[in-house]
């Protein structure tokens, strides 16, 4: 597993220009931030699931599996809001709305990553005016998520073999116990980062001011159509929210 998310499936989303997808994702995220009413947010979440299914050829089950690690945060959000907000029913409503936003946010990001390979992603960011290092940093960080996950499981197993049990004790005791995992994890990560920096430098990253690209991307007619569509849809969302006043519930009222 070199790059954890991308997989080639030859869908419409896969074939679009990365710039369109990056901007589409950004507008999608902006749209869900406009609303806080679950009556709008929940259908929106399903709309994006369907977009992934039919335009990106990613089975719904797979999309949900990617979101599974967020489940604890989602549950906590839904439980905590009604506890701290009166009236409780409205608190629950907000809990659900924040949880849905979070899930949609993650879903949109995943869709971008699954349908765009690393090279195109970096290129997309660069052509949108971001520094090359920005795209590179993001894709390296993503690349190392699974590595770090496997590493931390391995370290936990090693410490468990020395009688370490994180399940025992209260929150403070547990937090202290975590140092037995965090320190080896930190050391191993720093080592990897150091090796990576040597690898990058030995290939002369940053040696020339102006980068040239072996591959380039070009917007086709389909890409322009898609971009216009994204802008129109975003315009409609703005109108629905501010023109018609749909989808917003006062929190502090």
């Amino acid at each position, binding site marked *: 597993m070199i790059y954890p998310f991308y997989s080639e499936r030859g869908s419409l989303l896969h074939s679009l220009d990365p710039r369109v997808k990056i901007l589409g994702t950004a507008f999608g995220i902006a749209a869900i931030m406009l609303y806080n009413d679950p009556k709008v947010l929940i259908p929106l979440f399903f709309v994006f699931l369907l977009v992934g299914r039919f335009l990106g050829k990613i089975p719904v089950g797979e999309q949900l599996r990617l979101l599974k690690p967020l489940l604890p945060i989602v549950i906590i959000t839904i439980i905590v809001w009604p506890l701290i907000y009166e009236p409780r029913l409205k608190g629950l409503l907000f809990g659900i709305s924040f949880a849905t936003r979070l899930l949609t946010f993650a879903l949109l990001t995943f869709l971008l990553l699954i349908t765009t390979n690393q090279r195109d992603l970096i290129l997309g960011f660069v052509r949108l005016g971001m520094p090359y290092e920005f795209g590179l940093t993001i894709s390296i960080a993503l690349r190392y998520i699974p590595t770090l996950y496997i*590493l931390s499981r*391995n*370290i936990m*197993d*090693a*410490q*468990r*073999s*020395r*009688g*370490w*049990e994180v399940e025992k004790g209260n929150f403070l005791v547990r937090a202290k116990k975590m*140092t*037995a*995992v*965090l*320190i*080896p994890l930190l*050391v*191993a990560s720093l080592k990897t980062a150091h090796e990576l920096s040597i690898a990058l430098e030995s290939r002369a990253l940053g040696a020339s001011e102006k980068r040239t690209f072996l591959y380039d991307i070009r917007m086709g007619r389909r890409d322009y159509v898609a971009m216009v569509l994204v802008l129109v849809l975003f315009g409609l969302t703005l109108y629905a929210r501010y023109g018609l006043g749909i989808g917003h519930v006062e929190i502090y009222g």
Partner: protein
Amino acid sequence: MIRVKNLWHVYENGREALRGIDFQMGNEIVALVGQNGSGKTTLAKHLNGLLKPTKGMVEVDGLDTREHTVAELSRLVGYVFQNPEHMFFEEDVFREVAFGPRNLGLSEDEIEARVRWALRAVNLEGYENRTPYSLSGGEKQRLAIACVLAMRPKYLILDEPTTGLDARSSESVVKTIRKLHSEGHGILVITHDMELVLELAERVVLLHDGRKAFDGPVEEFFSMELHDYGLEKPELLRISEKAGVGFVRNVPELVEALAGGGR
């Protein structure tokens, strides 16, 4: 006695890593070999309860691993992980070795006695105040062994103990393993270093695709067609075969056989 009966392990993603393993070991040095992905680590992690059987049974001195926690089993089976640095987090060697016994809830006196004993066993006396990360490769590996040894387990599992070490460092690790064996420990060495198997093991267990493909004496193991299992015959054995002296364990034996034959 470690007893593994018809052990199956299926990972969450559906991968059948072990398919019906039967295996027993006592106070011997067993080499567990096989290609990458053949299931060595998966099998070893069952012996101290890090993994539980999907089907079948693992029993250590009469304890069913399904009914005991890793912490409980750690007093019986010590597992030294492949990369020693993955366990170091204390500021000095003494505290690092004391971590295990401390988790067992022992008295300070007992902890200190165990640390001294474990450091002596791996030949690291006098290193108490060093930082674990400042040690050399072989010293780190031996410190990792000491950390696990301080739990006073009867059985020791070593995952690739010599990988990445230079000749002298691995020699020091091999010496330590021999010494522990002579003191009555049962030792399971996971390795794909056939030279190490030849030098150290009393018995070889070969895994292939989640199944046990061979279990028997070292000499018989090396008479098999190892290429079929993605393994290489040690250089030493090729030389000895060419020279017509048959099976030898190490260079001195080869020299002696050659000298004897010449006489």
